[in-house]
C-alpha cells in the first residue's frame, strides 16, 4: 500500500525528531528548573514532596548582595572580554586574510588552537601560569626585574578579575577571528580594488570599506561571544573558584555553588532562571537593535 502525503505533512514529519529532541533536551529542563525554583528544595528530596514557596527563592536572590556583586562582575567581565576579543580577533583575522594563501592556512591553524583546548584544561593551564609560587608569568616578571616578588595574580582582587579576563581573551579571540575571517571572505575583491583605485590608502579603506562591510558579522560575533561570556562558568571554576572571596564569581558559578556546594536546588534554580532571563532579555534587545544594521547584506 502506498501512503500519499502532502508536502507540508512530509516536512513536518521530517522535522518531528529534531523537534522532539529540542523539547526533551532543552525545554523540559528549563520548565523543570522553573518549577524547582518555586520550591524550597534540598538536593536529597523529591520536589513534589517539598513545600511550594511561590517566589520566595527569587526574593532571596534579589536581596542577596552576592547576587548583585556577581552580576556586576559578570557584566564587567562580559564587556571587557568581548571588546578585547573583538580587537584581538579582528587584528588576527586581518593579518591572516592579507598574507599569502599558504601562510594564511598556517596562521588559521595556529589561531584556532586555543579554541580547540577544552575550557577546563585551559583554566588549569592558566592557573599554573598565574601561580604565585611556580607560575611562569611571575617568574618572567621577576627575572626581568620589573617586580621584586611574583604578583598574586589570583589572590589580589583587582589582579584576579583581570587575570580571568586575560585568560578568556586568550582563549576566545580565536573564535572571534574565525568568525571575522568568514565575514572578510564575503566581501568581494572588486570592492577593495575599487577603493584602491579610488585613491583610498589602507587606513581609509579599513575604516570606510572593510569595517562597515564587516559590521553585520561583527554584530553577530559579539552576540555569540557576549552570550557565552555572560554564562561563563568553567573558566571561573577551574581558575579562581570564584575567589578571592567572591570577587570573580559569575552568575553561573554562583548558581552552581547553590546547587552543588550548598545543595539548595530551589535557590540555585531561581538563580539559573534569573541568569537565563537576563541573557534572553539582553539578546532580544540587542537583536532588535542591530536588525537595521544587518540589512545591506540582503
Amino acid at each position, binding site marked *: 500500500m502506498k501512503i500519499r502525503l502532502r508536502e507540508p505533512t512530509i516536512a513536518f514529519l521530517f522535522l518531528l525528531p529534531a523537534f522532539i529532541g529540542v523539547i526533551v533536551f532543552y525545554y523540559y529542563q528549563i520548565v523543570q528548573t522553573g518549577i524547582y525554583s518555586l520550591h524550597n528544595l534540598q538536593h536529597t528530596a523529591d520536589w513534589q514532596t517539598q513545600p511550594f514557596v511561590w517566589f520566595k527563592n527569587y526574593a532571596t536572590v534579589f536581596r542577596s548582595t552576592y547576587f548583585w556583586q556577581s552580576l556586576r562582575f559578570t557584566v564587567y567581565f562580559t564587556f571587557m572580554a568581548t571588546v578585547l576579543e573583538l580587537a584581538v580577533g579582528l587584528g588576527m583575522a586581518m593579518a591572516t586574510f592579507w598574507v599569502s594563501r599558504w601562510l594564511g592556512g598556517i596562521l588559521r591553524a595556529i589561531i584556532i588552537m586555543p579554541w580547540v583546548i577544552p575550557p577546563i584544561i585551559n583554566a588549569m593551564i592558566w592557573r599554573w601560569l598565574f601561580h604565585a609560587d611556580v607560575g611562569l608569568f611571575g617568574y618572567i616578571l621577576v627575572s626581568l626585574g620589573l617586580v621584586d616578588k611574583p604578583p598574586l595574580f589570583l589572590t589580589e582582587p583587582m589582579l584576579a578579575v583581570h587575570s580571568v579576563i586575560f585568560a578568556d581573551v586568550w582563549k576566545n579571540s580565536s573564535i572571534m577571528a574565525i568568525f571575522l575571517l568568514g565575514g572578510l571572505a564575503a566581501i*568581494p575583491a*572588486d*570592492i577593495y*580594488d*575599487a*577603493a*584602491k*583605485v*579610488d*585613491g*583610498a*590608502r589602507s587606513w*581609509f579603506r579599513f575604516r*570606510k*570599506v572593510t569595517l*562597515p*562591510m564587516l*559590521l553585520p558579522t561583527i554584530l553577530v560575533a559579539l552576540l555569540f561571544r557576549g552570550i557565552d561570556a555572560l554564562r561563563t562558568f568553567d573558566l571561573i571554576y577551574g581558575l579562581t573558584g570564584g575567589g578571592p572571596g567572591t570577587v570573580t564569581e559569575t552568575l553561573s558559578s554562583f548558581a552552581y555553588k547553590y546547587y552543588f556546594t550548598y545543595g539548595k536546588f530551589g535557590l540555585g534554580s531561581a538563580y539559573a532562571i534569573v541568569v537565563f532571563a537576563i541573557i534572553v532579555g539582553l539578546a532580544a534587545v540587542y537583536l532588535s537593535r542591530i536588525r537595521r544594521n544587518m540589512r*545591506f547584506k*540582503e
Partner: protein
Amino acid sequence: MAGVRVEGLLKKFGNVTALDHVSLEFEDGQLTVLVGPSGCGKTTLLRIIAGLEDATGGSVFIGHEAVNQVPPWERNIAMVFQSYALYPHMTVFDNIAFPLRARKISKAEVKQRVEQTAALLGLSELLQRKPRQLSGGQMQRVALGRAIVRKPEVFLMDEPLSNLDAKLRVEMRAELKRLQKDLGVTTIYVTHDQAEAMTMADKLVVMRGGVIQQMGEPEEVYSHPRNTFVGGFIGSPAMNFIRCSVDCAEAELHAPDFQCKAPSRFVEALRRRGKDSVILGVRPEDLKVLASFEEGAVPATVYISEPMGKEMLLTVEVGGALAKAITPTNVRPRIGETVWLTFDEACVHLFDSETDEALPTE
C-alpha cells in the same frame, strides 16, 4: 590628460604566461579597446596599468612617468568594474563622493562636484538611495559617476556593460562613447564583445594568449585582418574559412567543391611563396546567394536559415563544411535546397595555411 604606454610587459601566474612582452601606446584622449576571448590577458593588462597587479617584467608609463612602483591610490586613474563594485553600505552620494573624500577634498567642493556629476549622468533623484535599490543601468551610472567625479588622467573600464541586458547595453554604449568624447580623457576599455569593440574604439587592440594580434582603427582591422584569428574574431557572424590548394601557373585556387581565380592582388605573393595551399576567407556579408546557376558560382546546400528582420542569416554546406551568408529577406530557400554562392574577388582574404598570417597584397 595623459597617454599611457606599456613596454615589454610580462606577467606570469605560476607557469601560465598571461602577458607575453606586450608593448603598446594608448594615445592621449583616445578610446582604445582591448578585445579578445576570455583568458587573452586583456583584463590582466588593465589591472597592471591600474596598479592592482604587479608585472613580472616591463614597465608602465602614465604621461611620461614610469609608475611601476606607484601604488594604485597614487596613480591618477579611475576604473569601472564589470560588477560595478559599488560600496553597498553607502548611498549613491557617498559612493560618488568616495574618491574625493579619499583625497581629503573640502566638504563644500565634494558636495558641488558630486551634484554636478549626478546631474550629468541623470542621477540627481537617486543620491540618497543605496545600491541595492538601483537597477543595473543605474548602478552602472553610479560606477561611471564615481570614475569621472575626480577628473582622472586615465579611465580604465573592465567590461563595464557586460552585466546589462542587450538593449540597455547598446544604449549605454553610445552614451559612454559620447561621454568619453565630451570629457576627452584617455580611456582603455576591455571587452570580449567584438561588436562593442568595433563600435566604440578609436583604436582597436586584438589580443590572444597574452600577445597582441593586431592593432589599428576598427575599419582597418575589420577590412585587413592580419591573421585568421583576427579575421574570425572581429565581425559577426564570423568570417568563413576554407582551405584551398594553389595552382600557381593558372593563378587559380582549388577548394574541394569549386575553384576560382586568385585575386590579382595576391598573385605575386602566391608565386613568391611557392606553397601549394592557402586559406581563403570570405565574410558572410560578402557572400552573394543566388537561386540559380551563374558563371563561376559555387553550389551549396541550405542547412538552416535564420531571419533577422532586415536580412537573413543563411547557413549552407559547401564542400563538407558549414559557411554563413547574409542575404536579403526576399531569398527564402528551404532546408536541403541547392543555392549558388558567388563573391567579389575584391572581398577575398587569403591567409598562409601554416602560419595563419594574411598574405601580402601588392
